[in-house]
């Protein structure tokens, strides 16, 4: 589930920007019209253009003759995917995250390695050193990794968010620890018990619907205690020992804090049961002072606030941790992990054409096209930088403009370089520029940032250089990629289910009962075999990690 933020982050960072059309001269493989279908597991319906007719998409069709027809995940994707596999009704391409293994087990993908040797020079170039990581033990390639190959430091998706109004009220104080944040919320509620006639809410969560508790209940706890996002596990950067996060002593302190929030009336009593819609409705009413969410998850509600001009009710993103000596782990760098991506299926009638299309997407010119749009129309080189044109900047203020340009749509889940510079030294990613980033903030956010003396939220966080980089990449992808009926996955699910049940129980208990509930939680974790889970995870990490390290060498 952690992949959703990724997707949203990728889609968002690009759709925030616009881009451009240029007379890109690309040697198209063959321009005969052809339509490729792709299944994308995410519910992107309505978030991208319907008939591949945006500006960027049109250029792609002109240059290659290819039209892409999307099929998205709808409702319960496991049923959808199970049926697809049972009928072997695969489209030409398939992108799946959580069900990748089902497709692999069913031999749905073709091995791309020989085709890439013949037709894919740009694919190899784009992935560079990471290309070898795409191969499995037997040297086969079933999919092209989806994540940014060269990552950029964007504003943190996950942080502790406090309304600009609250910070303003108290003169933009330093908010580093949970206790400081709590005091602030408390003081504000005492002063303003209602906002626009409705009761003020200190902090609320979205845990009522399935996996969402990962985002607002589990992850914030790990962050606040300083554990980087390796799924619900902690990987020791020196010994590579893996431990289930809730098996770590001291992790309960965050939840003890939530418990005190709950008992002092600062945490919304409906936090553990409300639906996501109710959650968003509360946020967009402007009366929720703080969140511990991923930006991608509450962004819709924040947009409502911005449309109504309630800028002071939008959120500042702050590196709040349990104590001052804990380093907020948002920017722990991670090596590239191609653990899922677009693959060509057995049903694709013309795999050569498909690989040529993927190769076309990997060209530098196409990478610029998909990320920025068309030269002259959407972007230009100005002051020695690639920048959006004035007309495009203006046009972006109109809702729905992104659908017309289709900028960024072909960057996910298709191969995408992400950050870095092209051969002319211009940036691949528009948000990789402080001025562009600054322009995306609303007035009130700018005031807050100026008060703290920084130019973006990311500057408030500990920077990547302060961490031991994760050589093992994004560990959560390893856990997510295990077949759902494997011993590891079953044990993992069981532990997570127990966590999902006990965290809300502990947080909403009377303060004096907290320890007893937590002890019971630990006992039951031990009983279902959390130690075995740790061992299995350590083994899995070693297996995946060393394969890749050897491959990279």
């Amino acid at each position, binding site marked *: 589930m952690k992949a959703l933020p990724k997707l949203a982050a990728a889609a968002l960072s690009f759709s925030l920007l616009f881009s451009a059309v240029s007379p890109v001269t690309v040697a198209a493989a063959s321009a005969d019209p052809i339509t490729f279908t792709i299944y994308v597991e995410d519910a992107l319906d309505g978030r991208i253009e319907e008939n591949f007719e945006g500006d960027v998409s049109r250029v792609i069709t002109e240059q290659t003759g290819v039209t892409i027809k999307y099929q998205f995940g709808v409702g319960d994707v496991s049923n959808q995917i199970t049926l697809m596999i049972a009928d072997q009704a695969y489209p030409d391409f398939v992108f799946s995250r959580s069900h990748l293994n089902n497709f692999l087990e069913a031999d749905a993908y073709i091995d791309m390695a020989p085709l890439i040797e013949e037709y894919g020079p740009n694919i190899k170039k784009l992935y560079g050193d990471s290309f070898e990581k795409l191969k499995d033990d037997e040297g086969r390639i079933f999919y092209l990794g989806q994540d940014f190959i060269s990552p950029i430091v964007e504003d943190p998706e996950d942080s502790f968010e406090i309304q600009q109004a609250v910070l303003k009220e108290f003169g933009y104080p330093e908010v580093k620890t949970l206790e400081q944040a709590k005091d602030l919320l408390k003081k504000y509620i005492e002063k303003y018990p209602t906002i626009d006639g409705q009761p003020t809410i200190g902090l609320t969560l979205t845990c009522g619907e399935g996996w969402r508790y990962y985002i607002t209940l589990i992850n914030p706890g790990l962050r606040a205690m300083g554990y980087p996002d390796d799924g619900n596990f902690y990987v020791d950067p020196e010994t590579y020992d893996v431990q289930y996060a809730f098996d770590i002593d001291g992790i309960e302190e965050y939840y003890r804090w939530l418990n005190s929030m709950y008992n002092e009336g600062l945490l919304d009593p409906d936090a553990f049961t*409300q639906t996501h819609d109710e959650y968003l409705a509360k946020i967009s009413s402007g009366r929720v002072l703080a969140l511990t969410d991923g930006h991608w998850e509450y962004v819709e509600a924040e947009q409502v606030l911005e449309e109504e001009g309630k800028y002071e009710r939008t959120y500042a993103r702050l590196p709040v941790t349990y104590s001052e000596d804990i380093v907020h782990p948002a920017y722990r760098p991670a090596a590239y992990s191609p653990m899922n991506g677009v693959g060509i299926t057995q049903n694709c009638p013309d795999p050569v054409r498909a690989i040529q299309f993927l190769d076309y997407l990997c060209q530098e010119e196409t990478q610029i096209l998909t990320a920025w749009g068309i030269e002259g129309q959407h972007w230009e080189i100005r002051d020695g930088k690639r920048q959006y044109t004035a007309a495009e900047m203006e046009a972006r203020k109109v809702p729905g403009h992104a659908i017309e340009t289709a900028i960024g749509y072909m960057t996910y889940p298709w191969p995408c370089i992400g950050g870095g510079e092209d051969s002319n030294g211009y940036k691949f990613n528009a948000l990789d520029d402080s001025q562009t980033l600054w322009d995306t903030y609303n007035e009130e956010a700018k005031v807050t940032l100026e008060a703290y003396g920084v130019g973006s939220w990311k500057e408030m966080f500990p920077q990547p250089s302060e961490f031991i980089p994760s050589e093992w990449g994004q560990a959560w992808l390893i856990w997510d990629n295990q077949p759902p009926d494997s011993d590891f996955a079953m044990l993992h*699910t069981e532990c997570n289910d127990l966590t999902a049940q006990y965290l809300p129980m502990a947080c909403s208990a009377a303060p004096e009962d907290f320890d007893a509930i937590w002890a019971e939680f630990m006992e039951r974790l031990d009983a279902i075999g959390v130690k075995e889970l740790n061992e299995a995870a350590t083994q899995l990490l070693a297996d995946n990690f060393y394969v890749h390290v050897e491959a990279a060498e």
Partner: protein
Amino acid sequence: MEKNAKSKRLRLTKASFPERLYRQRYLLLMSVPFLIWVLLFNYLPLLGWTMAFQDFKLKGDVFQSFFAADWVGIKHFVALLEDILSKGRFYLALRNTLGMSFYMMVFGFVTPIIFALMINEIRSMYFKRITQTISYLPHFISWVVAAGMISVMLSTEGPINELLENLGLIEKRIPFLAQEKLFWGIMTFSEIWKELGWNAIIFLAAITGVDPGLYESADLDGANRLQKIWHITLPCIMPVITVILIMNVGWLISVGFEKQMLLGSDITRNYSEVLDVYAIKYGIGQSRYSFGTAIGMFKSVVSIILVLGANLIARKTGETSIV
């Protein structure tokens, strides 16, 4: 004439089986489509039960996968039994299913009967019709919408909390949906609210079938209203009540899962997870189709035992039976 008819009847009873078959050929022909329907949709799928004895994995299409799968005997049933013995999650799901069903049986079965009796006693036709229509309207709302309404009503900012607070009955607002002990009650109450009027229709229909002569003679004997209900209406609709009861027992283990899934959350899981939800999570969700099938079989067996049991009791006590 009379003689003729008599001999005809005689012949009918004595007719040989093929002869009777031929005679009833049109009737038989008419029932063929239904037979096919039952075979196709009720019996053929039973073949899928064999999956419960396999380790089924999707590889290629369904039939290829079926023949390629390993046979593992009763492994999945042993796993279920072990879970029950160790009071694990399957045990909890089973308990919740039966528990909620039991609540539904007791309250959800009695209330429509009482409601039908009450509606029947209303004199004003106009008022009677309006009441009845309003009472069965919620039946047509889908659970998704109904769950939304219920969750708003029960939230800490909802009308129920407000009411209780204004009446001074509670000091602190209660997040009802986060109270695991209240979950069965909330489920039962919302089910009754939604289905009361609808379920009463069949009893109302049965009541209209009661011979008015009985009431008239009761009037002559000086019976009051309550006595008429107790001694005439109820005994007259008893056969209907029994049949419905037996059928309900058959559904006992199929308490439905929409409302539990929509209104339950992790915090109430010990009391909200029912068998169907468990089967979805641990069967389909983990691609353990065989395990899921085993759960389905388990459910069916329990259902059959319950129905036969209820039927037996009904027959022993001299009431109608359906099997």
